[in-house]
């Protein structure tokens, strides 16, 4: 099953002009004010991704997002403009998340988020309707593999093969995790 809306959203991200090349060039030359422009334009998108990838823990998502932007600043000279800046940033986010997911601290945070669903992302999602909050909480409670596959495919619009490459797993594993995620989410929403 594909999600045409998410896919088109992803396509629009990768083809959009997004952050202007001039701002990126100034930031690459060390202009921190230009980088702030980049941050203002891209942080809501990156933060949403961080929040979902990190299982809805707002503090952790904030820390992850900050890490992503600091990495982006240091690695700006490696951005050649061959893809959209937002895609490059997106890849940095997923990589940073995967790195942090391997740490013990991250595992502990995940256990807590599953055991205490009431704490999941409530602050960040306060303005959304109830059903969306339920869905966000259900996504946050998913096992990590299923959650990453679901968020990257259904929300971010990545193809199975792209996700498999990013996560370093087989494409079949991504499909299986997605199916598992969908079933778990439906169960959670039917409760």
């Amino acid at each position, binding site marked *: 099953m594909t*999600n045409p*809306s998410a896919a088109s959203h992803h396509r629009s991200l990768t083809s959009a002009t997004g952050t202007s090349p001039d701002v990126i060039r100034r930031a690459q030359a060390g202009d*921190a004010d230009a980088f702030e422009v980049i941050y203002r334009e891209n942080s809501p998108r990156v933060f*949403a991704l961080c*929040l979902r990838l990190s299982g809805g823990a707002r503090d952790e998502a904030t820390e992850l997002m900050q890490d992503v932007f600091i990495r982006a600043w240091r690695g700006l000279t490696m951005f050649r403009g061959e893809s959209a800046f937002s895609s490059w940033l997106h890849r940095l986010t997923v990589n940073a998340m995967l790195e942090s997911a391997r740490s013990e601290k991250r595992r502990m945070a995940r256990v807590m988020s599953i055991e205490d669903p009431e704490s999941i992302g409530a602050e960040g999602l306060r303005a959304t309707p109830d059903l969306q909050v339920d869905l966000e909480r259900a996504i946050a409670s998913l096992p990590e593999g299923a959650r990453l596959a679901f968020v990257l495919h259904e*929300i971010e619009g990545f193809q199975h093969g792209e996700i498999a490459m990013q996560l370093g797993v087989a494409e079949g594993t991504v499909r299986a995790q997605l199916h598992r995620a969908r*079933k778990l989410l439906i169960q959670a929403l039917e409760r």
Partner: protein
Amino acid sequence: MIDPTEEEKFAELNALVRQLPREIDPPADAWMSIRSEIDKTRPGESYTGTRRAIWQRPMFLAAAAVALVAVSSIMTAAVLGWDAGITRPRIVTASQRPQSKPQEPGPATLAEFASVENDYISTANQLSAVLESESNTLSPETVAKLKESLRIIDAAIIEARRALAADPGNRALIDMLNTSYNQKLDLLRRTTEMGRS
């Protein structure tokens, strides 16, 4: 095979997912921390992340350096015991060696170590040059083992250096770096002597 009811539910789920916001505002003060961090460096400079991966943490690097030193010790033994046809010097480890005088304590700080590091490098370079000029006195197997052993010791030095960059006050890492350099010099000296015997 997905049954129709399940497919319907998946479609409903998709419809709901499409309504989720793609953007969520981060905390208002999040930029300040980023700004203070990026003011310290310029694009292109190396960064290990505020949340270091486990392989970037000093303790992991220290453990890696210990492992490398251990491996290099085994390699050193292999090098010095290799040329049985020429001579087989008894391998004496540092702990087995008779202590004619108490061992002098190594540098306690990175600053102290920096002052002796140049001497280490200079001596190692001199010994390497001697060894290079006399390499025809050693068997090719010994030379290959020596090179591999030196590569491992150098890797241990690099790892200990990296770990120290992240944790400059770590005495254990300074000791490890000191040990690695000593081991390198010891290997070079003894291999040079072996070639002359």
